[in-house]
């Protein structure tokens, strides 16, 4: 009898201390990251988002940090793909979407976003910028200078040897071997492919006559599944060239692409700079920062092969609680802390000061 009673008391004590301990873990840095120092977070509820899988690792980092700062909030991000993410957002099943492309004019004109107050438009933030590196495997060569036409010719199969005059003339002093080029591309449908082909179509229109597409448009070249497959194929092959998320380039050689009169190697700053150098899509609402990426830009110091993934939300929500949560979450994402976290965890390029100012004005207007 006594034993039973003590037993239950002990159980309650254990459960209680566990509960307290778990609270304490959460309270550690409450408020420090949301901007309102000192005051504990008052946000609560569940925020649902869905969309681009390119944002997955960044979203995971953001969600973890945001939930630590706001213990009563649960954020769910379903990396189902950009198309699925936009559909979910239109249907009102999510509060925000992640998408590798902005909504098109006609989609916005339809104005059937279920979560938004009709006629108020949407917010689109290019808050995830990820440089794509052109990688190659040649013994002892860490970097090569190539212009867009040469890159397009290599991937199209018109240049087949590494010691082709077109490559040699751009790389004086580099010992290029008499070796066949094997160009590796993604075997699956991917946003990385879409951005590279978009760049080739814009910057080398005379050579690359195919449209931007997530599926590799031509038969030439070697196909490998997923980013890791491309990296492995380039690493294990001889005389290989491919493209992948820059954070995965590792020890492979990378191409500095010609922009204007100079060769620009990929870097976070140069990737963020192309976004600043590109105009906004015309005729959009205040908060819609959809960008007309200028891949053929000749601006100094910009790296044109980037993947831009948008965060899409309503300007005005039907549901005030949803608005409050989304606003706080987006504020965190575009903040310096959020961008640095993504850079660290996902290898993205933090947005520039100029873009941050525009984006934070757009987020501030969400209601």
């Amino acid at each position, binding site marked *: 009898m006594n034993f039973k009673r003590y037993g239950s008391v002990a159980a309650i004590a254990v459960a209680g201390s566990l509960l307290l301990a778990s609270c304490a873990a959460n309270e550690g840095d409450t408020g420090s990251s949301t901007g309102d120092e000192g005051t504990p977070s008052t946000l609560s509820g569940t925020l649902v988002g869905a969309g681009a899988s390119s944002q997955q690792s960044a979203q995971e980092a953001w969600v973890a940090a945001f939930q630590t700062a706001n213990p009563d909030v649960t954020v769910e991000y379903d990396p189902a793909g950009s198309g699925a993410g936009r559909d979910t957002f239109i249907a009102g099943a999510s509060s925000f979407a992640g998408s590798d492309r902005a909504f098109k004019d006609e989609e916005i004109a339809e104005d059937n976003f279920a979560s938004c107050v009709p006629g108020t438009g949407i917010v689109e933030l290019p808050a995830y910028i990820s440089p794509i590196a052109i990688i190659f495997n040649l013994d002892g060569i860490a970097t090569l200078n190539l212009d867009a036409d040469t890159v397009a010719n290599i991937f199209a199969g018109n240049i087949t040897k590494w010691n082709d005059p077109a490559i040699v003339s751009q790389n004086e002093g580099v010992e290029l071997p008499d070796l*066949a080029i094997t160009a590796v591309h993604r075997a*699956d*449908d991917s946003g990385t492919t879409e951005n590279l082909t978009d760049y080739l179509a814009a910057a080398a229109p005379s050579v690359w006559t195919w449209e931007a597409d*997530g*599926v*590799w448009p031509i038969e030439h070249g070697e196909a490998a*599944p997923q980013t890791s497959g491309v990296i492995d194929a380039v690493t294990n*092959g001889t005389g*290989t060239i491919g493209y992948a998320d820059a954070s995965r380039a590792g020890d492979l050689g990378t191409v500095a692409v010609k922009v204007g009169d100079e060769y620009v190697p990929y870097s976070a700053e140069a990737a963020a700079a192309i976004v600043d150098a590109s105009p906004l899509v015309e005729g959009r609402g205040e908060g819609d920062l959809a960008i007309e990426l200028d891949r053929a830009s000749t601006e100094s110091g910009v790296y044109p092969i980037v993947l831009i993934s948008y965060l899409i939300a309503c300007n005005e929500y039907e549901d005030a609680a949803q608005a409050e949560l989304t606003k706080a979450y987006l504020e965190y994402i575009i903040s310096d802390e959020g961008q640095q976290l993504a850079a660290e965890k996902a290898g993205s390029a933090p947005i520039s000061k100029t873009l941050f100012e525009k984006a934070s004005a757009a987020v501030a207007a969400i209601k």
Partner: protein
Amino acid sequence: MTSAPARPARITAKKRLGDRLFSGGATTAGALILAMLAAVASFLVLQGVPAVTADPRDMSILAGHENFWTYVWPLIFGTLWSAALALLMAVPLSIGIALFISHYAPRRIAQGLGYIIDLLAAVPSVVFGLWGANTLAPAVQPFYTWLNDNLGWFPLFSGQVSGTGRTILTASIVLAVMVLPIITALCREIFMQTPVLHEEAALALGATRWEMIRMTVLPFGRSGIISATMLGLGRALGETMAVAMVLSSAGVVTFQVLTSTNPSTIAANIALSFPEAYGLNVNVLIATGLMLFAITLVVNSIARWVVNRRKEFSGAN
């Protein structure tokens, strides 16, 4: 009493509970396999039909193709071509290994070897895929270059040789290694069933060991070899992960085995395309799955037919 030879009375056994339970259980098991097959087939047909009937322009996956059939044809070709290459390598090797185990090797070695072959069957296909893409492909690449340089006039070895070795020949080698244990294990069992009297008779007539095998073991095991090959073929046709990881694919129909542009297989194509597929594109992929289902059915029927036709020559009856 029982001396009526004209009409033997039909004896019906008394049905005991155990008998009824067992026969019921066996019948259910038999019916279940049919029901499962019917469920899979009806799913494939129901989901696949829209891909054929809908306007090809509604399906982004069919971009650049006239219709579903021009999309699926290279895949069907690739599936059959890679499986055929794999069997070409695996079957002679398997028969050799099986003969070695059953008739040549000392008993102790034979047993150990048998275990090792069976172990090969337990390796997951992802592991074979990793091995094929990261170890085998770079290792055979110089050999491919040599083949291409010296035998490039031969249509199979022509074209621009791949720089990574991730070609359909490599994929077929991986497939051959994967089907090897199945074919070997079955052949070994069949060869060991050869009536010892036949073998001894052949030897007594003065046959060498090889002649004995040719006269008794192989004819006796012929239908078994075909069945084993068909089981192996089934695995080669349906193999997904290993091919998806090893093969560098493009939607082409070509017999060149050393280039970067190879036809993909149905299963590998589904695995690669499904994650980003939406709407009707999913139906297209399921319809290609239906094609694979049909091919497997046809192949198995042919195998059955061959086995039945050969039945009178085999020593099994």
